């Protein structure tokens, strides 16, 4: 598998150098692998810090900026960052109002951020943590590491980021982030595996004519393999998986929708898929208030898509519409 890289072990460092060159509005510490807002720490503001393995770009560093994250710490490809990174991002962005870590629910992320939390408290930084665990493809969560954090992360970072930007205190931002995390459901489908630099090739085999349902974002195979389907059929399976998990409440409130590309599915196809998703949702009586279509929470060059629904009320809708200014998500300023 050919990649536009220098060497597998240099991929993250090179990307950070390139981010630094492209985004003077960010402070990029290439050596320590931390990306923060240039104006951090912002006086009186709770800091939002996230991070995780690389390979999901623009998540998370692409969401650092006004109205979203204060700092991000990218790990190696598909490998959660080490505690030092998270600690450094927290210390550099804490204004004294405390830090909220947004953590996707993977064993590695949880363990490393938990260690960072302890270290942060040792250094006198008030720290809290919200877990994103939105992937409904993980069933039997008693017998697993629990639901994975995927597309819902974007909603948690945006909405909690907006609340933090408005000056809400740590407890409020944390409670809101938890509420949003609880309101998100995701489901993903792969048409092809991705290739990691370390492996140099596809992370699993997917025969022509088949797709994987219920995939995660780390190039892992999904729960079930089926014969290839049309965009309309994939939308039905996906939406129904989400609605089954949401239950009857799904028609009570409007939703934010993220129709997300896994990396190499063309935007042309993603928009077409959005049409089908919207059609199925409408048929089930579900109202969509806002939609985002694009590659936001990716899995390197995997072909496929995921859908995330986030149930909102007036307040969350207002926070969604609030100004945001990051490399990958920007409006209102």
């Amino acid at each position, binding site marked *: 598998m050919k990649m536009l890289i220098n060497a*597998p*072990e240099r991929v993250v460092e090179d990307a950070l150098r390139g981010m630094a060159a492209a985004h003077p509005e960010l402070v990029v510490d290439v050596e320590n692998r931390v990306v923060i807002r240039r104006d951090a720490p912002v006086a009186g503001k709770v800091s939002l810090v996230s991070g995780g*393995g690389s390979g999901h770009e623009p998540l998370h560093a692409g969401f650092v900026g006004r109205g979203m994250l204060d700092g991000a710490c990218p*790990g*190696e*490809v*598909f*490998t*959660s*960052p*080490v*505690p*030092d990174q998270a600690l450094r991002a927290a210390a550099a962005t804490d204004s004294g109002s405390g830090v909220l870590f947004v953590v996707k629910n*993977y*064993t*590695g992320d949880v*363990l*490393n951020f938990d*260690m960072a939390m302890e270290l942060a408290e040792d250094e006198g930084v008030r720290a809290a943590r919200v877990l994103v665990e939105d992937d409904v*493809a*993980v*069933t*039997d969560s008693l*017998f*697993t*590491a629990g639901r*994975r954090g995927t597309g819902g992360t974007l909603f948690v970072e945006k909405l909690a980021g907006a609340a933090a930007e408005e000056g809400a205190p740590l407890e409020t931002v944390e409670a809101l982030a938890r509420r949003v995390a609880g309101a998100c459901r995701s489901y993903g489908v792969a048409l092809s595996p991705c290739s*990691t630099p*370390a*492996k140099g090739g596809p*992370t*699993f085999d997917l025969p022509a004519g088949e797709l994987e349902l219920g995939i*995660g974002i*780390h*190039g*892992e*195979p999904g*729960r079930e393999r089926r014969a290839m389907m049309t965009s309309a059929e994939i939308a039905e399976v996906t939406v129904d998986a989400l609605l089954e998990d949401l239950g009857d409440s799904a028609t009570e409130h409007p939703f934010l929708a993220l129709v997300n590309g896994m990396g190499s599915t063309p935007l042309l196809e993603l928009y077409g898929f959005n049409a089908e998703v919207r059609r199925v949702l409408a048929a089930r009586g579900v109202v969509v208030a806002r939609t985002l279509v694009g590659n936001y929470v990716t899995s390197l060059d995997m072909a496929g898509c995921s859908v995330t629904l986030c149930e909102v009320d007036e307040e969350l809708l207002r926070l969604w519409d609030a100004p945001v200014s990051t490399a990958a998500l920007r409006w209102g300023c």
Partner: protein
Amino acid sequence: MEDGSRRVAELDTGFFVRWLTETASAVDREADRLTELDSAIGDADHGSNLRRGFTAVTAALTDKPPPSPGAALGLAGRTLVSKVGGASGPLYGTLLRRTGRELGDAATVSREELARAMSTGVEAVAALGGAAEGDKTMLDALLPAVRALPESFTAARRAAAEGAVGTVPMRARRGRASYLGERSIGHEDPGAASSLLLVAALERSWEAADE
């Protein structure tokens, strides 16, 4: 000849440094296989994770030669925590740090003392990750190994090897492989495979000490 029968005690700092650098070489040699195993039921990074970590361990041990067995393990554990990331970084880091802490600053330790300390280290791994034997994780190699270690290094290595192979038919209940449900069955757990490398390096270091 069983190592247990030959000598008592006297695993010194040099032995521990050798163990750790032996592990580093083994991980380096086997990194692609570990990544391959992780690609079947995980995210294809276990080999490169551990290679990055143990390369840094070797460098740290050369850089700041540790004064005692406990210090050697502590340094290695801290290095793993701050270089590996992923699930295996905190878990192996905790194993070594906790084992090292149990050894205190004794200049030499017996195999029995090491076995007791490692047993505490492995318990800490289980507590941190919330996994138990049979969940198809590194614990399935580590727990049998520390149980056999009082007997001999060779017995520990054999137990780890059996434990690693024993993960093949298991259905994963912890770590990424658990997302696959039934489909995790039929593959060896990458962390169990790397734990075997650690325990096998222990045996080899002992044999080298013996020559």
